[in-house]
Structure formats: structure tokens, C-alpha cells
């Protein structure tokens, strides 16, 4: 995989791992993670449970981990590098403690918010990604008539399929105006690196998907940052 640096320093970063399968949310309590030697006793001191119920569990550990589990979805998210710590936790959870849990889909998600300096540059990038002329006669109306607000691209997704490294799955990028960065100068990009296995393979429990996570995590993040960098590069082209 190519060496990659994102040319603009993101102002906000996160990585999440999403697993789709058959889960029991009620067991996902910080104490369960400590009992299974997946989190340390120090971790549990900073753990904060938002809700643990039969159909949903949400807790966070300090600033580095947020876990949310629903009957068919497990989400672990971090904003703190090194992101590999999230990989270690998820792989150990489903390889050592929940090995028989059927998991059949996985997403490795990279999200960043970055600034392109000013609103004008952001607008130009938006128009480059989604030219308004394509909307015909409506194009002249999109901007609106008020000085302080204008229309334009709200959300754009692009998907790559037919990848060689997986039987089924895709890579999907989404670009939107950032609501976190001030002065209307921010762009939000999310990359969803999505893997699927057949229901038959998922009868082997979590192992087939978790093996993919073990092999692909670092590669996936580097590729996602490379895709994000393509959007960052537009700042130099508009």
C-alpha cells in the first residue's frame, strides 16, 4: 500500500469498527470487559455507562473508547490515536471472548473534519464535486436569493466495487460540509470500508470477519487517508 500523509491536518479525527451480526447487548458492560481481561481496572475507573438494556448498551471509557451495541450491530469508536488500540480490543473481544457470535458484515470507518481556509474555497470545492449546471434550469435557483444563506451540495457519496481483496463489499466515501469547523470553511469526509461474508461462512462464528479485520485494519486506514487526501488536494485546484 502506498505511503500516505493527509496534506491538510484534520481538526477532528475518528475511527470506528462496525460489526453486523447476532449480538446480546446486555452483556456489554465495562465490568464484563474487565472480567474477560479485555480492559484494565484503570480503564473501568474512567468508564461511564450511558445505558445498558436488553436492546442497547452504550458506554465510554475515558476519551479513547465509545462502545454501542444493539441486537444486530456492534460499534466501537475512538478519537485517540494510535487507532490500532481499537483494533486490538475488537479483535480480542471477538477472538477470545465471543468467538461463536455470528458476524457477517464489517465496516472500518475513517472520519475527518478539515478546514480549507475560507467559505469561498469550500464553495468552489462543492461545485467541483457536484457541478450545478447538471441540474438544468433549476441550477440558477439553487443559490437562493438571500445574502447570508445559499444553496448547494449537501452530501455526496461515491462507491468503489469489485475489489480484489474481498468477495463481497465496497469502499464508500461521503463528503459533506462540516458542521464542526467554524466560518463555513470545513469539509467532512467519511470512508466506509465494507466487508461481507456469506451466511454460511458466518456459521463459523466471528472468526472469518475478525481475521479480515486483523489483516486489513492498517491497510484500510492508509487507503482511507489516501482517498481523503484526494479531496484535500482539491483545495490546490480550485
Amino acid at each position: 500500500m502506498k505511503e500516505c500523509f493527509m496534506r491538510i491536518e484534520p481538526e477532528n479525527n475518528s475511527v470506528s469498527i462496525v460489526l453486523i451480526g447476532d449480538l446480546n447487548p446486555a452483556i456489554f458492560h465495562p465490568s464484563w470487559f474487565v472480567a474477560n481481561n479485555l480492559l484494565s481496572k484503570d480503564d473501568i475507573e474512567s468508564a461511564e455507562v450511558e445505558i445498558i438494556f436488553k436492546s442497547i448498551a452504550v458506554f465510554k471509557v475515558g476519551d479513547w473508547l465509545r462502545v454501542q451495541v444493539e441486537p444486530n450491530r456492534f460499534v466501537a469508536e475512538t478519537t485517540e490515536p494510535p487507532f490500532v488500540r481499537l483494533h486490538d480490543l475488537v479483535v480480542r473481544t471477538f477472538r477470545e471472548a465471543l468467538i461463536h457470535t455470528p458476524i457477517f458484515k464489517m465496516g472500518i470507518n475513517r472520519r475527518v473534519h478539515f478546514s480549507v481556509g475560507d467559505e469561498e474555497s469550500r464553495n468552489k470545492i462543492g461545485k467541483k464535486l457536484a457541478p450545478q449546471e447538471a441540474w438544468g434550469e433549476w441550477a440558477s435557483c439553487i443559490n437562493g436569493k438571500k445574502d447570508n444563506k445559499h444553496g448547494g451540495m449537501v452530501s455526496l457519496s461515491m462507491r468503489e466495487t469489485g475489489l480484489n481483496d474481498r468477495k463481497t463489499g465496497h469502499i464508500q466515501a461521503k463528503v459533506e460540509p462540516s458542521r464542526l469547523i467554524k466560518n463555513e470553511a470545513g469539509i467532512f469526509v467519511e470512508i466506509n470500508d465494507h466487508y461481507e461474508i456469506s451466511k454460511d461462512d458466518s456459521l463459523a462464528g466471528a472468526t472469518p470477519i475478525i481475521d479480515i479485520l486483523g489483516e486489513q485494519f492498517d491497510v484500510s486506514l492508509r487507503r482511507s487517508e489516501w482517498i481523503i487526501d484526494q479531496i484535500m488536494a482539491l483545495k490546490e485546484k480550485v
Partner: protein
Amino acid sequence: MIEQTAANLTPYNETASPLGLGSTTQDQGFLLKFYESIVDDLSAAKRHGTPSVDTTYAKSSIPDIFPNKIPNPQETRYSFSVLQEWEGYVVSISTETFTARLTDVTRNCTIEEEEADFPLTDLEDADRLRISPGSIFRWVIGYRRSPGGTKDRSSRIVFRNLPAWTTKEIEKNRHDATEWASQLNVE
């Protein structure tokens, strides 16, 4: 691009992260799904007259099971942008420092090219107690940015909790070792 939000016309993306403030499309879907699942449980329990989830006597009411606050997306907290990242393993430990061999992860290197000494005081208390020769860690340097926008250069060492080797990985390592050994014989 614009300031306002618009209705979600894109298909629901199952494994995309559902927790983002930046997302104008997914927040609504996630929150709706979140509350629907709770309401479904409540109405099912009412229909079938099932007792509380707990086996002990517990007074149950809707306010009890709803969270005190709506899940807080992580984007509102401190953020850390990596400038450089290395993976290292501990070679030796003295009273005040430890020495490690480093592989540059940012440049996608696979061979250790550097060696460095780190003060033990840089480690978290738990890591200082468990460090031993061979321990593997990640070292990142970058900018730590507060929600208010101030940023400072920061360095962080985190020891890895590596999963146990799988049979497949052990087989691959044996195969690689055999291959390398045969190349050494040729030379």
C-alpha cells in the same frame, strides 16, 4: 456546499459509523432507530405482560430506562492529529529509561530502522508496571487540539494488547521462516 441540512435520500449504509455530528444524514436515522428499539421493547413487554428484565423486584418506568442524555458524539471532544507513528518493541530497560527498536508505520515500513531511548516517566502508571523486554507499543507524535481550537504538540506511547496468535498466523509465520531460511542457505 451549504449550511442547511436536507432530507436523507441515500440508502442506509449498514456498516458506516452512525455517530457523527458532521453527518447531516445519519444522525436522524440513528436516533430514530435507537428510540424505536426501546419503544418496541416497552410495548412488547406491555402486550405480553412480561415482568421487569431483572429477576429481582424493580419498579420500571419509561424515564428509568432512557439515558440521562442523548449519546454524545465523540467529535465534540479533544482531537489528536498524527504527524508520525512508529511501532516499537522494548529491547532493554534500565532504572530511568527503556530502549526500543522502531518501525515507521506512517511510511509503511516493515523493517526496524531506528533505535531510541525513552524515559520511563513518559509511560502511564499501568504500563510502567507491565513493561518488559519484547513488549510492543505504538508511539505517536502529533497535534492535540481542544474543542476551543487551541492546539499543542504532543507525544503518546500506548502499549498494545495484542490478540493471541491464530493457527493460520502461526502457519504463515512457519512458512515465511522456512522460506527465509532457504534463502540464507543459498547465500
